[in-house]
Each structure stands twice: as C-alpha cells, then as structure tokens.
C-alpha cells in the first residue's frame, strides 16, 4: 500500500516540473510570436483572404479593395482592415499595398490633381507610378509592396504581402 503513495520528493518533483514547464511556455511563446513580423502575417484559410470584389469588375483603373482578418498580438485579438489598390494589367491582376514606403501613411490613386495617374501620399507628397515605383525626388525610398493574388468562385483573394515584382 505504501508503495503507491506519492512521496514528498516525488510530489515536489512533479509539481515543480509542471510549474517549470508552464513557466517556460509562458516565456517562449511570446518570443515565438515576436519572431513573426505581424506586418507580414495574414491570417485566413490557406493564407488568402476573400474579398468582396469580383474579378470581372476589375479594370485598368486602380480601385481600393478592403479586406479584414483577425490579428492576434499577445492577448489582444483584433480585426484588422487593410486595403489594396487593385487593377488589371493585360490579363494579370495587380494588387499593391497602399502603405507608403516613407513612413507608412496610406496612399491614394490620383490623389494629387497636379500629378494624374500616380499614387499620392498626402503626408509628405510622396508619389509612385502605377506599378508602385517610387518617383525620385519625393520622400519614399522604395516601391509599394505587392499582395499575392488568387481567385475563388469569381472573387478576388488576397494573400501575403511581398516585395514589388513589377519594378
């Protein structure tokens, strides 16, 4: 009978290992999360987020497409809405991130009447060509990022943010 009793030493071993493991997990998990840059994290099935824009409605004129996904930052869950400028280039669909590569404002297509057919950043007058190429002499130092695109049932799906492939 006494063989089955948990000794004081065993009890301490079990509990302390348990607590230690729990503490290690508590320390490690946030570290893992830090390792993944939230800006490059898009959460949805298969990494693509469904939008409400029909492929057939996309023309050569860039339109703004909003999409929402859930982002978890430590304990704080939030719905993040991001946008993309989407247009057709021949048969190819291009989706550009609206986040200015200077300091991160949101750029607008045709936002400055003095410079038509360009993306314009109202914060410090940054400008980009339609391909997202930054215009020299304005503050941005790189081209707009791109989104991976895909299609499902005729609707546009947006995936990961990648470096611009057009310039």
């Amino acid at each position, binding site marked *: 009978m006494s063989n089955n009793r948990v000794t004081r030493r065993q009890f301490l071993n079990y509990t302390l290992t348990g607590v230690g493991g729990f503490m290690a997990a508590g320390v490690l998990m946030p570290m893992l999360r830090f390792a993944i840059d939230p800006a490059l994290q898009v959460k949805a099935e298969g990494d693509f987020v469904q939008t409400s824009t029909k492929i057939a409605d996309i023309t050569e004129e860039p339109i703004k497409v909003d999409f*929402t996904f859930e982002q978890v930052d430590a304990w704080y869950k939030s719905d993040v809405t991001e946008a993309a400028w989407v247009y057709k280039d021949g048969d190819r669909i291009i989706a550009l991130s609206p986040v200015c590569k200077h300091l991160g404002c*949101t750029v607008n297509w045709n936002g400055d009447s003095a410079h038509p057919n360009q993306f314009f950043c109202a914060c*410090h007058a940054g400008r980009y060509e339609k391909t997202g190429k930054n215009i020299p002499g304005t503050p941005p130092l790189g081209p707009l990022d791109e989104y991976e695109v895909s299609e499902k049932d005729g609707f546009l799906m947006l995936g990961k943010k990648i470096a611009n492939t057009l310039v």
Partner: protein
Amino acid sequence: MYYNVQDVTQFQSQKDFIDTVIIPLLSVNLKEDMIKQSSSATQYLMSLTAFIEQQFKGRIMLMPPFTYIEQFKESISPLDIQEEFRNAGFKHVLFITCDHSWTSLKEKIDVIWLPSIPLESMDQTVKKTILEDQLKQVIPILSSKWSQN
C-alpha cells in the same frame, strides 16, 4: 504612429516629418443612465482615431486618450498639455473629443469636436462607411493645418 517604443523611436529620428500629434480627450461617465452612452462614445473615438492613425501614420502621432470623470475635469488642462507637446517638438497639437465642453477653448487650442455615433449597433460595412465619412470631416482640418507652414 502610436505611442509605443517602436513608433516613438521613429519619431525621435524623424521629427521633421512626424510633426503632428492627436490627443483624444475622453470623458468617462459611470452613472447608471450614462454608462452605456459613455462607453459607446469611447468606442467611437477609439475607432475613429485608430483609423486616422492608419491613414496618416507617417505624419501623426496618436496619443492614448487623456481620460477624466466629469467632476474632476479640471484635472485636465489642454493648454498645459499643448505646451508640453510643443516643447517635445510637435508643430501641430490637435485635440479630438466627443465632449462638447472643450470647444469653449477653441480660441486657444485646436480641438476637433465630433458628436459620437453608436457604432456598436452597426455591421462591419456600415461601420466602415460611417468612419470613412467622419474621416472626410477631419481631413480638411488636417490639410489646412499642414498647409500653414
């Protein structure tokens, strides 16, 4: 920019570009018949300011709200706050609030007053449209500030 270490670090090295601060003034009212309305206004102000931040991240620093209860409102002094932020290098100090009483300081501080809208009863799409409309009211105020220099 948000008031966090990463964004503040950027602010320190880019003060010429990040020249505007937005400071929400937030009233909290816990009275039985007011608490819902008060939390609704909070939700609205937080959503709207986050949206402004997203649009103008590279030029605006959004502060956490300066929060007060009605009886101790005097503990908040926008004039002193304005002074403090100017000294820290912000060229434009803008307050934003749903509390109408602050408009009495209109002559001395830049304050944007917006009546709160109950977003909680709206679905995502409507909410977005409303916030976009509200943003459109704020943009002219910002651009007139920015074109001053």
